[in-house]
């Protein structure tokens, strides 16, 4: 009897010893990633995209030989400061709700005389392939750093986009019967070691939305919000989310509006 007891005790200790490092491993990995981010904050390469984007913003290009400095992002022609914190929004000249990327495409077509296909070309960069769009996004969003998110749904078209975005967020489908909400509807979900924000809570939505766009260290690229949604769709094995499509604008509208009230804090840096 005594021997059997001792064996149980010993096995118990063994199980504990096994369990402890795993639990510790998860906790510390999350802490370590936070520390890693803090260490990189000082030298965020996103600034390289911001500088390049500012150059593109001011460069007279296209058949119209115009710069984007007269581009109206919602606060009047050429006003960049704080504009991103109130996007997506309804634009009367286009009679459409537009997010930043869609508006940039609009300006490149209307002001610079580019074809729509040219303006939408190369939305996401890669190795040895620099995307002008991502640089422009970096520049414009950096001018809203510190501004409070203030996305309106007063206009009927804005409200419509918000509703559609909400539908898409909760919609489950595809080969894995997956939806945004599968990963982003509960606290404490992860993909590998990466904590996922719960976008159905105010804090989760605020923290997630206000830290995009971001420089992804693992990719060596600055990634826009359109890229974020596009890649989420890929991970869900959904059909490709078309760049600046109505669906992408609606989903952005839903997530941006839910982040209202929080100070915008991007371009950020992520692992």
């Amino acid at each position, binding site marked *: 009897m005594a021997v059997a007891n001792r064996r149980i005790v010993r096995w118990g200790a063994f199980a504990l010893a096994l369990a402890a490092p795993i639990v510790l491993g998860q906790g510390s990995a999350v802490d370590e990633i936070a520390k890693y981010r803090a260490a990189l904050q000082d*030298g965020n390469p996103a*600034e*390289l995209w911001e500088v390049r984007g500012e150059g593109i913003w001011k460069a007279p290009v296209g058949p119209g030989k115009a710069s984007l400095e007269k581009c109206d992002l919602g606060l009047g022609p050429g006003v960049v400061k704080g504009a991103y914190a109130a996007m997506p929004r309804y634009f009367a000249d286009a009679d459409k709700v537009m997010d930043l990327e869609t508006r940039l495409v609009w300006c490149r077509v209307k002001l610079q005389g580019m074809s729509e296909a040219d303006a939408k070309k190369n939305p996401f960069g890669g190795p*040895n392939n620099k995307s002008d769009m991502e640089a422009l996004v970096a520049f414009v969003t950096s001018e809203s750093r510190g501004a409070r998110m203030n996305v309106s749904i007063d206009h009927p078209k804005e409200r419509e986009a918000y509703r559609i975005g909400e539908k898409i967020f909760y919609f489950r489908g595809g080969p894995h019967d997956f939806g945004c909400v599968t990963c982003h509807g509960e606290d404490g979900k992860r993909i590998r070691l990466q904590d996922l924000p719960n976008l159905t809570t105010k804090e989760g939505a605020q923290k997630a939305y206000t830290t995009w766009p971001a420089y992804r260290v693992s990719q060596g690229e600055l990634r826009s919000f359109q890229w974020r949604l596009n890649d989420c769709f890929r991970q869900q094995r959904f059909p490709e989310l078309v760049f600046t499509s109505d669906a992408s604008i609606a989903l952005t509208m839903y997530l941006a509006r839910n982040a209202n009230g929080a100070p915008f804090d991007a371009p950020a840096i992520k692992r």
Partner: protein
Amino acid sequence: MADPMKIRANVSGDSTEVKVLMNHEMETGQRKDANGATIPAWFIQNVTVTYGGKTVLSAQWGPAVAKNPFLAFKFKGGAKGEKVQITWVDNKGDKRTDEAVIA
């Protein structure tokens, strides 16, 4: 032509702290492309920082340095309004020089 660096230089006490972000692919030479062919090494080899015509930092780098590298260092001296000049040369002979006014 390489893209510009982002440089910040601030006097604190009797020294100047310089923070530089450089735009570079920094290929290690260890990676392979989609066809299985080795991507040739391509990295910054020499970094030189001058202040008032004097070299205050000179570094030899290798392929282990990260893409879009960030470099922070301090040197003795430096005055507000003066310029620091930073130059890198990579193993393909491409180079870039930028300067910043010390704040």
